[in-house]
């Protein structure tokens, strides 16, 4: 792992400066079923291809952002601030 990542705040930096936060997941509603909860807690897509994931610029501005990375080639397709989730289930309406 030695690629470059574009922090929306600081620009392109060595991946060593970042902390990986895993796949972007949609948090189930408080009254979700046990199955949905289990899927959220332990199920991962582990995509072979583009994947949305959390990154934190740990040794920089310490901000969290979302990167779309192709896990097959390690190419970072885009980075952006976290999607607006102030509206409940904004992510689903976003088609994610």
């Amino acid at each position, binding site marked *: 792992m030695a690629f470059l990542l574009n922090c929306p705040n600081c620009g392109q930096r060595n991946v060593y400066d970042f902390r990986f*936060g895993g796949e972007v997941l949609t948090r189930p509603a*408080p009254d979700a079923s046990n199955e949905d909860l289990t899927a959220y807690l332990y199920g991962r897509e582990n995509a072979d291809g583009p994947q949305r994931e959390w990154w*934190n610029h740990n040794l920089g501005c*310490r901000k969290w952002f979302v990167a779309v990375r192709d896990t097959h080639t390690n190419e970072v397709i885009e980075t952006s601030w976290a999607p607006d989730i102030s509206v409940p289930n904004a992510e689903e309406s976003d088609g994610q």
Partner: protein
Amino acid sequence: MASNGTGERLSPGKHELIDREVVVDFEFEGKLITAHQGDTVGSALTAVGIDLLSRSFKYHRRRGLLCVAGNCPNCLMTVDGVPNVRTCTMPVTGGMTVRRQNAWPSVDHDFGSILDRMDRLLPVGFYYKVFHKPKILWGIMRPIIRRIAGLGRVDTSSDGGPAYTHRNVHTDVGVVGGGPAGMMAALEAAATGLDVTLIDDQPLLGGQLLLDATRHTDPAIDDMQDGTGQEIAEVLRQRVAQQPGITVLNGATAFGFYQDNLVSIHHGNEAIEVRAGRVVIATGAIEIPMQFENNDRPGVMLASGALRLANLYGVTPGKRAVVITADDSGYSTALALLDTGITVAAVIDMRPEPGTSELAESVRSRGVEVLVGHRVVSASGTKRVSGVRVIGPDSSERNIRCDLVCMAGVWNPSTGLLLQQSDTAVEYDEQLRESVPVELPEGVYVAGAITGIHDLKITLAQGKAAGRQAAGFDYEDASLLRAGERDYRARMRAPGSSSGSQTVLSNPVKTAKKEFICFCEDVSSKDVEVAVSEGFGDIQTLKRYTTATMGPCQGKMCHSSFIESAALQTGKTIAAIGRTTARPPAQGVPLGALAGPGHMPRKRTALDDVHRRLGAEMVEVGPWLRAHNYGSPQDEVVTVRNRVGIIDVSTLGKLDVRGPDAGALLDKVYTHRFSNLREGRIRYGLLVGENGSIMDDGTVTRLADDHYFVTTTTGNIDAIEDWFNWWLAGTGMEVFVTNVSSAFAAINVAGPRARETLVKLTDVDLSTDALGYMRSTRGMVAGVPCIFLRIGFVGETGWELHFPTEYAEHMWNALMEVGAEFGIAPFGLEAQRVLRLEKGHIIVSQDTDAASDPLDAGMRWAVRFDKPDFIGRGGLVANRSRPSEEKLVGFVMHDRFVPEDGQPIVKNGVPIGRVTSSRLSPTLDKGFGLAWVPEKLAREGAEIFIRSGKTDSPAIVTLKPVYDPDGLKLRE
């Protein structure tokens, strides 16, 4: 010890690296060796007549200098305690100590060399075949084999060896390889105004040109009409030195090439990571050994190695040479050797016809026999080569006497670094008879001998083109360059073509047990034949079975011979055989260089000096150093229980959480509710993960309507800060989370006389009516603004004071001074652990683990299920609906016996739980602690048994703290 001078040297050469005016002494196995400044260990030893440098891996055969370029395994020695140093490129420094390795009792008289005659016992893959029956034999043989094989030994008594450092370099264009192509590329790229880093593994830029004494006309460099290769190198080197923007790293080995053009470099005691915008790979080609029996005898060298010794160090590689060649370079080698005064007995040209007949003629005219279409079958001699057996085209055989064999003109393009990139491909080129790059990733360019073309003019043009392209421009003369390359390839097709590699297998029909392909691992052509006949026909399995290409040279010396040999044995073409996978490192790197200096930060509180002056014993707690005790933890416990104690708790994580949505954020991440916390109140805060397991704990204080002060455990602060910010991301909540851990120092003042002490320094009303338990206020103490937290981790009346760090020592001294009359004393971490344990307070990750939830840990009271949502609610709700497996409880022994942390609770000899913390209780004068037990035993008075060694000791479960069970003291 006596020095015998720097040995016999050739007359000074124009391009040598040594300074004959300066001598340097070093120690070699107890003897003092004198070298010249600029010598390598290998050149200095050869100069004084030491040609046996190592013993081989498996058969313990004698090995001497081969490549003199830091590629092969033959000169690995232990230098200043560091094993496996390539001494042929290691510069001599005064006072260094050098010894040879992998032999007993000595390299000169190695008992292990008997293995060379026991090869029948050690067939290829013997590790899987012999010494396995009877079974007990393997147990005896394995340690012996491991001791006999292998390389140098790590000195375990060493205090850590050299201090390695790490450095990051950012550059526009990285150029790997400092030969003509690399220098040209660097010059072109830098001329456009870019920043260029030129990386070369040799002490001097020039690459193969350093050894090239032949004349080149019109090299197309400035206004240069003609010059020898060495002169051209000199001109290029000067231009590189004068060109602004080029940083040169000499003696720097690029061993890793990673994504987004990161080049990892080993440079002396430094590891450098060069992040380049674009990269030019001009790593050239490596001359490799030919195949004949005993091709590993000391005195059998690569032509380039012999010339390097003679030209760069003035050391004679031998007295009477035989040159074997696969291209014209053998003739230039012969001429260069003759010029230094070495006798050349014969040039053996493996091609059916000589290439450039003028070259052959000029060698002949100097009295050297030229044998065209001949091959060498074997070398003779025991300690050193004494002759070669030659077979002619008519199968006639003869011996030629010599003490030096130079193998010239078989080249292996150095693609080991390039191939570490994905989107890269190398293919065997039938015309060039070399495996050359055919596919390159974006932003990576190649130039020079790595392309399989050995022609200076083309190499220089390729360098120019690569430099231009790496700088982001087109190369104007691209079509001319392509035409030149086409023309070169056309020449290659001609019979008896003038240059280019030939097959390395001098005798393709017959294999031999001691005809070595892989010098690192002692793998011979016979071994490949046997392995293929056993079914290991695929190159990947053949590699793993024979271990060929897997030694220190990482295939540099053997990869093409190995593939060619495999092709021969399987009847496939070289292209069909394919290649083994290139992985980092391209060359062995000391682990110390990879590890670098310790990166563990060592944090000290503002009171560190104070603790040391008081004679505290310090312990590591995460990154922090904390005072464990000041002499007697027992006395410190008594101080707090009976009088007043102070402890430095500055290491606590502290977060300032501020904004209109601060309460909402805390409600979201904590199990408790904080939006309804009144100003000036404190509440215990428990953080759990989404699955409900305990992550961290601390206190949350509401300082103002939109302002909270949060403490976390010492080691978790960074993770908790990230955790808060993660749950904020994208929510649009208006909150600032600021880590103020080092901005605030903190001292806890606790004990029955704490109030009397503190009132002397403050006007704040400390009475329970004004500032009760779990209340907070702000005010001045000893003239310093403080946040007062009335909490009770240790179980006594006490105040945690948080204040600006710069006043820490002043505050500490003021408290000690006014508390003197009440018997104040500092207490350390150990006393605090005993005190808190008597109160049954948990320490997260000491008493809990990744599977512990608040329900089982007895902290149901800290979880507000009536909140519609919080992080971990779903997990806790699910856990609540399942029967609990175990609970965290207190226990008390019947006597002063103290079990160890982690000892099992047993029932009928079967573990059913475990102790997490235990100490001697000063209150009870009995052993006690916390333990996880099955739920049915989690009741007051239940009997449990704790196993220590072979003894099971009884203990009684208690659900209440052993000290002040109702918490009355805290509230006084």
